[in-house]
């Protein structure tokens, strides 16, 4: 089970509080595919960081499952180390056989000999390929994704999508994004982060309309209050 229980998270930015969550609650089963729409700058990465346990809320409780894994996360890679060494490192973290994991990642990322050179020499696209290969090679119960599910050139995107579809037959997904299109194909439930609250929606169209309304009426308090009153506050 994943989610938030009366969670609040805010930052002080230039002396003004920036609220990401305001007594928000959400519950997601480990094998559910849930998409959370949030306006740009609303705190998508903070939501993922809270769910991943990297960040802690100011109040309330984050419900976390042990089988979560960040999708396409390359932040843990060391640029001084080769692609192979980085993959072996993640294999150690995930408790996987390093040789098998390396074979999978080398084949999936299709980096050729570059797999054996330091990441300092990689382009952004090569790093992305490696990050996707590493995250899709780990047998997670739930994938945590920030903004995107696939990336790269069309052929690589197709491969990512096929492998992700295969993983999501048994695994869950929590995708936090500002682009509704990212949620449409992979998610089954939808929610919107609006003014610190997480609002569960009936379908993607309802989520899109709420997000659009929220972004268009950013400063109009009463209009937003009326709009929120018609939705199910999770």
């Amino acid at each position: 089970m994943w989610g938030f229980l009366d969670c609040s998270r805010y930052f002080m930015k230039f002396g003004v509080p920036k609220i990401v969550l305001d007594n928000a609650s959400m519950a997601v089963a480990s094998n559910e595919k849930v998409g959370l729409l949030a306006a740009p700058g609303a705190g998508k990465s903070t939501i993922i960081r809270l769910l991943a346990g990297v960040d802690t809320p100011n109040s309330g409780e984050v419900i976390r499952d042990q089988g979560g894994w960040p999708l396409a996360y390359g932040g843990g890679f060391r640029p001084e180390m080769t692609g192979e060494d980085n993959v072996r490192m993640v294999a150690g973290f995930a408790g996987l056989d390093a040789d098998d994991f390396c074979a999978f990642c080398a084949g999936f990322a299709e980096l050729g000999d570059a797999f054996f050179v330091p990441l300092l020499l990689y382009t952004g696209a090569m790093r992305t390929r490696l990050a996707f290969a590493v995250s899709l090679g780990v047998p997670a119960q739930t994938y945590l994704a920030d903004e995107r599910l696939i990336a790269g050139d069309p052929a690589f995107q197709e491969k990512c999508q096929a492998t992700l579809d295969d993983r999501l037959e048994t695994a869950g997904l929590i995708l936090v994004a500002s682009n509704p299109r990212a949620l449409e194909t992979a998610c089954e439930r939808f929610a919107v982060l609006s003014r610190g609250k997480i609002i569960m929606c009936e379908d993607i169209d309802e989520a899109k309309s709420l997000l659009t309304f929220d972004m268009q009426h950013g400063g109009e308090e009463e209009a937003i209050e009326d709009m929120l009153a018609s939705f199910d506050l999770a």
Partner: protein
Amino acid sequence: MNAGWAATGEGQPRRSLGEWLIEHGEIVLALISRDLKTRFSHNLFGYSWSFVAPILWIGGTYSFFYFLGRTSPVFTDIVTFIISGLIPYVAFRYTANAMGKVNGGVRSLVIYPTVTPEHAAVAMAIIEYVNVYIVAAIIMAINYVVFGNIELDDLPLWAGGITLAWLLGAAYGYLFSVLSRRDVTIFQLGIILLRPSYFFSAVFFIPNEIRGPVLDVLGWNPLMHAVDISRDGMLFHYQSHISDALYVVVSIVLLFGAAIAARPWRSA
């Protein structure tokens, strides 16, 4: 493409103690490998500083002895005497300092659900434990080659003193690294507090020669006991009458206990 294995359920949580140890051991080994590969990657000078700094300490302490006209209080030469106190002191300081890298070092890794700062603390401590023996071997080899002196009376006792100093450094550093999760400046405070420790931890004196109220005060310093135990093991003609290994162990347990108790005190 070998994608089939990944969804077979490998990597599920393991339950027995042996499997638990293997699981966490793999994470610690991965962090050790990561640290060593990063240290050695481009800046060998940076790593060699680990060995240069103790040699400079020896030079400084030797000059101090020379200008004060002080001789070794034990039947041995001055350099060997200084080395006998400096090696366990290095074990303590290097390990305490290394704990400062725990939080920052795994900041980008704790998003992986299996990795915690505690894994990094264990990894850093293991690296420093091995490091101190490399430092000891280099310094003792230089002492032998340059001055023709080398002493190692009781290897287990010497290593035991070093181990106590190392554990003490790990416990002290870990406590301040846990506290610094609330405020990063707390760790720096912990290191600043350690600065005078060089002068009252029996690096250049022996507890046997101090008496009365001075001993009553310095006797509370567990590092002095650990250094003295290690010196007892190294020098042929020195036997410690004051050091108490149990007192050091109790201090280590108390520091680790305080760190564990402080762990819920996270950043707001």
